[in-house]
């Protein structure tokens, strides 16, 4: 059943609502006429983020947008997508030094390293028999859509730098995040929303905050930074008009500001004023569009049940539903963060916690997008900032695993990714990615490629370098991941 409500109809509905509630009185006519003259000029002004860079896309895009599902904390690949029977056989035995000698290690420094076998069962799923753990029964149902990569590597072993690395391709602070790059290159499809939206969920265990610099625009213009929509309170800070100021009055105020700015700028010639006027335009539109987005009361109960979302609860499930709605409204890069995957101890217990909150909503998001015919042009990426060690860590009463960067798992789906395949391998103990290694940079290059961007030709001069998301070292597009 096609329930799609396309972007156009949503915008039309917004305008109707506004006008019907507006009731511009006779007295306001004079002001309205004055400000409406501006509306013609407005269309000539470039809107805030909708324009793409000249020359882009370099090639035909497969995906129009990205939804990045970040499992913050680092989910264990060994209990999700990477089954290691040899590790099971060596459970409790010392971890062979040949693997760990001289390698970076996090909290397990100085501890005697022992093997920990997989703490779950794995089964084959889908047409091609994808091996997926029992912790993820719902994702297993859509195994045919998943392009699982088991040979990921990253370079940063602690959370914050690893997030920075995953987001910006560098451990050096101050670089733009993926979402900012993508919006800078392709612009946004929506005038009512920022092109880069971040949703962090509550629920489960959340020991570590995610710093907002993870979605900063770095040295790119600030308007490309991610805007976080909050789960509780005002979705966006200062979104609401002050008490006693309805939409009509706020609208008149905003238009007056824009009119006066434009008028003064004829004399002053400040280049930034056009951007400012567009920023006020979007700010005002968001005052309507964001509440409309967050109001899921119009969704059928069957959809809410599919995600397991309670409106306004700030859960990952609700955020997945919001992600679909954002996708429908033309947002280019939607980044979800669910924390709590940092299982140094009590892994089984916390895997259950995390998977209960994220597994079904992930399935729901994929299925929902597919039903609406949107999966083909929406690239979904799932994974954390790193994986977890084959060696056991005893924090808490039950075994866990430490941070691990030499080999871990992620998956892609939709947007031109090749579903139903597993790519790459780690060694027999799940320590090193050994076959068809995919570096974070390669993931970025591949993602940009699917969006129609040649990562080598997409750069910004800064500090004497032609800065790229994929950096100065080599990065390859992983063709085998493309359908």
């Amino acid at each position: 059943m096609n329930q799609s409500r396309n972007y156009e109809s949503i915008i039309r509905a917004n305008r109707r609502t506004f006008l019907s509630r507006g009731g511009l009185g006779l007295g306001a006519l004079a002001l309205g006429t004055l400000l409406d003259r501006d509306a013609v000029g407005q269309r000539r002004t470039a809107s805030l983020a909708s324009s793409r860079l000249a020359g882009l896309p370099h090639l035909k895009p497969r995906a129009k947008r990205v939804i990045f599902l970040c499992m913050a904390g680092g989910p264990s690949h060994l209990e999700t997508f990477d089954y290691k029977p040899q590790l099971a056989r060596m459970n409790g035995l010392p971890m062979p030094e040949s693997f760990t000698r001289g390698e970076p290690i996090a909290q397990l420094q100085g501890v005697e390293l022992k093997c920990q076998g997989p703490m779950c069962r794995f089964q084959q799923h889908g047409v091609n028999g994808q091996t997926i753990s029992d912790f993820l029964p719902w994702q297993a149902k859509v195994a045919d859509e998943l392009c699982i990569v088991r040979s990921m590597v990253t370079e940063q072993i602690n959370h914050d730098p690893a997030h920075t690395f995953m987001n910006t391709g560098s451990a050096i602070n101050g670089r733009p995040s993926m979402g900012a790059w993508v919006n800078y290159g392709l612009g946004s499809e929506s005038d009512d929303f920022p092109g880069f939206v971040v949703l962090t969920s509550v629920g489960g265990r959340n020991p570590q905050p995610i710093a907002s610099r993870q979605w900063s625009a770095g040295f790119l213009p600030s308007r490309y930074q991610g805007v976080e929509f909050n789960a509780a309170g005002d979705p966006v800070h200062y979104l609401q008009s002050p008490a006693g100021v309805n939409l009509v009055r706020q609208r008149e105020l905003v238009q007056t500001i824009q009119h006066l700015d434009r008028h003064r700028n004829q004399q002053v010639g400040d280049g930034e004023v056009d951007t400012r006027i567009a920023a006020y335009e979007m700010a005002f539109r968001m005052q309507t569009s964001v509440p409309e987005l967050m109001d899921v009361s119009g969704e059928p109960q069957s959809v809410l049940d599919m995600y397991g979302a309670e409106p306004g609860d700030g859960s990952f499930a609700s955020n997945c539903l919001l992600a679909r709605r954002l996708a429908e409204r033309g947002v280019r890069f939607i980044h979800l963060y669910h924390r709590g995957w940092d299982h140094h101890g009590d892994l089984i217990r916390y895997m259950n916690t995390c998977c209960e909150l994220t597994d079904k909503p992930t399935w729901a998001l994929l299925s929902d997008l597919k039903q609406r015919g949107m999966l083909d042009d929406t690239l979904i990426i799932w994974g954390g900032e790193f994986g977890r060690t084959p060696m056991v860590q005893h924090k808490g009463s039950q075994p866990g695993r430490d941070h691990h960067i030499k080999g871990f798992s992620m998956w892609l789906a939709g947007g031109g990714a090749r579903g139903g395949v597993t790519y790459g391998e780690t060694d027999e103990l799940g320590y090193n990615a050994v076959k068809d290694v995919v570096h974070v940079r390669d993931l970025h290059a591949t993602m940009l490629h699917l969006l129609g961007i040649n990562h080598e030709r997409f750069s910004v001069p800064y500090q004497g370098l032609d800065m790229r998301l994929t950096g100065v070292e080599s990065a390859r597009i992983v063709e085998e991941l493309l359908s």
Partner: protein
Amino acid sequence: MDDFGGQGLPPDHPQLLDRLALELIESGWDVKSMVKLIVSSKTYRQSSGVRNNRGSEGQGVLSELESMDPENRLFARQSHYRLPAELVRDAVLSISGLLVDEYGGASVKPYQPAGYYRHLNFPERKYKQHNDRRQWRRGVYVHWQRQFLHPMLKAFDAPRREECTAERPRSNTPTAAMALLNDPRFVEAARVFAEQILRIDDQSRTDTAGLEYAFRKAVSRSPDPEELHTLTLLLESHRRQYAKTPGAARELIAIGQAPVARDLDPVQLAAWTSVTRTILNLNETITRN
């Protein structure tokens, strides 16, 4: 400013830089005297320039200077740029008369959206807003939480201070627009500003006189006919609307902790608050011209 070194651009005034460097050394490395020297120079005190010669559509024609030197590298005029975050706050508070001008002392905690610190950990923290006059102190005294910088400051590009920021970006984002429009602190300031306007000597106070006063206070000049006309229309429109909804007027003027003037007509005050909110949101108000 982050571009020093072999790969950066060469300076435009090398002799001036040499001279200033010598001055700095000879002054005994006195940074304050250098600042004073620079800001009292004729160069610094230039105007950022207003265009002459309106074209046929009333557009100012690009002055010769602008076409020759669009980035103002030669400093033949002063540049205009948006004020840094702390000063945006100070400017708004100062215009409204709410700014508390005390020096020194402990950091202050002005209004901040509820629950902003909920993700903070190691340890968890609760934000306790100051409800006395401390809340109107200068921006430099505001409490600095690096990972969770106050949203208004963040919206106006204040750095987190996790690392040295040689030059702040100057962004124009919807987030900043929303902060300046809807932050209760600024709405309150607009209302108090409006109270000032309504208290101008009664005999002379016409709408035009009020707008003149407001403009002079905010941007140090008189409004031109178009500006007067537009703001008058807004004032009249909101007067009409608030006259029909006096409850809304009372809600608006009650925002903030500065005591509400009880002797002023709420409808008038609310309408003028719309005008002052507009003026406080003008580009010119928060720009160093």
